[in-house]
């Protein structure tokens, strides 16, 4: 199963679930009765998709900010590498192999 199949299946499932909750709002004579208390049905359900989208965006942006904040700048690694490159060049000179 490809990742695309998984994502699309999940999306369809989520849509079905949401439709189950939202159908009474969309149709006058809904075949499926409202299963939630009226207040939830009228005030929460319509905005649920937007809430989900914004939450997702916040989550991803939060991860991005956190990742950049905690990013390790490894200056020591740079200096260590430079030193080792110089040493390697000396060893190559001993072996009579060029490096320029």
């Amino acid at each position, binding site marked *: 199963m*490809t*990742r*695309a199949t998984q*994502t699309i299946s999940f999306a369809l499932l989520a849509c079905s679930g949401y439709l189950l909750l939202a159908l009474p709002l969309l149709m006058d004579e809904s075949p499926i009765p409202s299963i939630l208390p009226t207040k939830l049905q009228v005030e929460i359900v319509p905005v649920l998709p937007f809430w989900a989208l914004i939450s997702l965006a916040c989550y*991803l942006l939060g*991860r*991005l900010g956190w*990742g*950049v904040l905690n*990013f*390790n*700048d*490894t*200056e020591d*690694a*740079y200096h260590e*590498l*430079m030193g*080792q*490159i110089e040493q*390697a*060049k000396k*060893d*190559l000179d001993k*072996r*009579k*192999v*060029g*490096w*320029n």
Partner: protein
Amino acid sequence: MAKGKANQNKYSVILPTYNERQNLPVLVQMLYDVFTKENLEWEIIIVDDASPDGTLDRAKALQKSFGADHIVLRPREGKLGLGTAYVHGLQSVTGNFVIIMDADFSHHPKFIPDMVKIQAATNCDIVTGTRYRTYTPTGLDSKMLGGVYGWDVKRKLTSQGANILADFLLAPGVSDLTGSFRLYKKEAVIKVIEATESKGFTFQMELMARAKAMGLHVEECPITFVDRVYGESKLGGEEIVEYLKGLTGLWWKV
């Protein structure tokens, strides 16, 4: 124990080169130092794509100095691309482990022993270097630092953004999907490379995505990545578009 070596394994490093006349000898010397210090059986397979700067002559000089049993030359007729270079090099591999790394010092050979230890402790199929995590992997005694030198804030944002997007879309289970410093069991890399179709840096992403999809056991090793030892690190709009296209392609195919 084979000939007094630390273990029974042989490690083959595949180095595709194009105009690496200056870097190649230094890298080979550094690899030699690491393998000798750790007492490991090794070979380096140099796949040169007809470099006009004489890289192949350098490679021949290295072969003379370090020995033809350690330096294997498999040159090609023209610039044919990274993916096919690995496939070409793989055919000459006599080791049971394959190491793939960049030839521009962004990947440091000193991490190879750490990857070897992780693989030995977990018997995983692949050990992949990660720049984005810091922790103590299974098989090692101390915490290892994952990080980069040479990236400004803009570059960090782009890289982290790219990685998070890939993680969200593909959920690959590795923290650094675009990394290309990896230790593979030979059978694992052959199996995965056969299924891989992409070109460019998407190739490395696809290798990992397919490996995970095939159910291979992948462990990570935090590494420090020194970007652009010589010159500026560039990441243009073109690369970003290519990346997004590659990512979507992977999401669809794998």
